[in-house]
């Protein structure tokens, strides 16, 4: 299709504007964390790093960050195991109900978070409470793992689809039993898919707020919950600004790792 010069220029301008609008809010968060004014007035009267050291000493934010990391790691570990098991079952076996299982895996992330949240909340209250287990970090991990399974499943299933079974068969012909073949052949070939899936699962869990609201006990605060609770408190505004800026900076890490991983993995499936 031959586009006229003005049409090309118009499209280029539109794309540049679009990207600018996508990045400006993130840039603003970074600038605002350096804003010396307590109520983040705009434009900032100057720039200062003071709030970063104040935030560093803020116990609430640090505890919340740590809780988020713990919940994310635990949920990721569970999701890696469950997602890989389902991927192997669905990709390497033909059985009745295969489609239904693929569908059930996607459901927790396809339904609105609040529906998943209150469903788990009332289930925990009726099943776990009589057993003496209250809402806490454990229930947060269960909730997060439920919707993290799908990203691991997607990555591993996509990898298995492209991996011919003949590698494993060759290993077995050479005398390896199926566990040996898995450890020496299949696992190394799917390691990057597991890494990508795990990365996505951790990012999903780290960012989650809705399901967390309904599965966390009163004493458990993940970082998003902490930000949400402190967002409207004028006293805490500068610290919230710094935490927000920190999260923007930290999001560079998964992007870097995702780019290091190969084509069909994280970069293509952040959904």
């Amino acid at each position, binding site marked *: *299709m*031959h*586009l006229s010069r003005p049409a090309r220029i*118009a*499209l*280029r301008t*539109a*794309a540049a504007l*679009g*990207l600018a*609008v*996508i990045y400006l*809010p*993130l840039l*603003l968060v970074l600038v*605002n964390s350096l804003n010396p004014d307590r109520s*983040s*007035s*705009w*434009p900032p009267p100057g720039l200062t790093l003071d709030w970063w050291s104040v935030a560093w000493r803020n116990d609430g934010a640090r505890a919340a960050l740590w809780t988020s990391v713990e919940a994310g790691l635990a949920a990721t570990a569970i999701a890696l195991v*469950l*997602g890989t*098991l*389902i991927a*192997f*079952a669905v990709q390497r*076996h033909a059985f009745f109900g295969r489609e239904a*299982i693929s569908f*059930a895996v996607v*459901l*927790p992330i*396809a*339904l*609105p978070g*609040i*529906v*998943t949240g*209150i*469903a788990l*909340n*009332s*289930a925990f209250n*009726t099943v776990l409470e009589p057993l003496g287990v209250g809402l806490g970090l454990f229930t947060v991990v269960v909730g997060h793992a*439920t919707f993290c*399974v799908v990203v691991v499943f997607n990555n591993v299933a996509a990898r298995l689809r492209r991996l011919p079974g003949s590698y494993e068969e060759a290993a077995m012909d050479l005398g390896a*039993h*199926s566990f040996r073949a898995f450890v020496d052949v299949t696992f190394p070939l799917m390691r990057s898919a597991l890494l990508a899936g795990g990365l996505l699962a951790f990012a999903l869990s780290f*960012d989650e*707020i*809705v399901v967390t609201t*309904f599965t966390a006990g009163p004493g458990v605060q993940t970082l998003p919950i902490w*930000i*949400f609770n402190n967002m409207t408190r004028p006293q805490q505004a500068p610290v919230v600004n710094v935490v927000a800026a920190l*999260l*923007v900076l930290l*999001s560079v890490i*998964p*992007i870097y790792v995702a*780019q290091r991983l190969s084509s069909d993995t994280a970069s293509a499936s*952040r959904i």
Partner: protein
Amino acid sequence: MTDAVAAAGPLRRLAGTLHRRPRLRLSLLLSAPLLWLVLAYLGSLAALFLSAFWTTDSFTSEVVKVWSTDNFEALLTESLYRQVALRSVGVALAVTALCAVIAFPIAFYTARVARPRWRPLLVVAILTPLWASYLVKVYAWRLILSEGGPLDWALRPFGLSGPGYGLTATVLVLTYLWLPYMILPIHAGLEQLPDGLLDASADLGAGTGRTFRSVVLPLVLPSVAAGSVFTFSLSLGDYITVQIVGGKTQLIGNLVYSNVTLNLPLAAAVGTVPVVVIVLYLLAVRRTGALRSL
């Protein structure tokens, strides 16, 4: 060698048994995930929707387990619920339409106009904000839209001011949040568009506009539909953004949220509304063939 075989004996025997019995292997693979998904997740979902048919004692707020369709009747007859449901669907549709209109030129540039060398980089640039925290992005917009904030400051020289917190702000922020989910499928769709079709259209005498209307749009429509699944369902279920930048605006999610502690059955009944709407939307979209390209 023989030592190794002897040491691995039981393991090897187990591997052999599993190899010969695919059913056993399958049930071992599936038991743990199915216990989790079916028992823990689908079980609690089913219980929740069952509880939508229960009622609440208005004095003690305790759930009364007597079958009744009161909650659903209230949903259909009371104007508050109808209004909020319609507003939520309206917001989701508006966000989807805005995303499609904004995403198209950007995707057209990244997929067909930009130099091929730059294209992967542009895709990464669009993808990157998806890794930044959802809450941080909404918070950024809370700052931008605040009274006397950056938007007001930027518009003041023109004698204008920002929309402030409210329904407009909600639509704006949701559009911002889900825009990449619309750009990426459209980019993929445009990228796969064969050059031959465009040349053929030009050879047959069609101008750029005609080629766009008759060739490009129909072929890319499934991609737009695929993107709209995300923008629509993510907007419909959202209640955090509304709480942060929506002022007094209420959407379905807020109604569910405000009823959870006092009247769980009613909250469950209200919660069925977005689920039903999303399922209907998926069924409608499936007819375009968009779900296959997800």
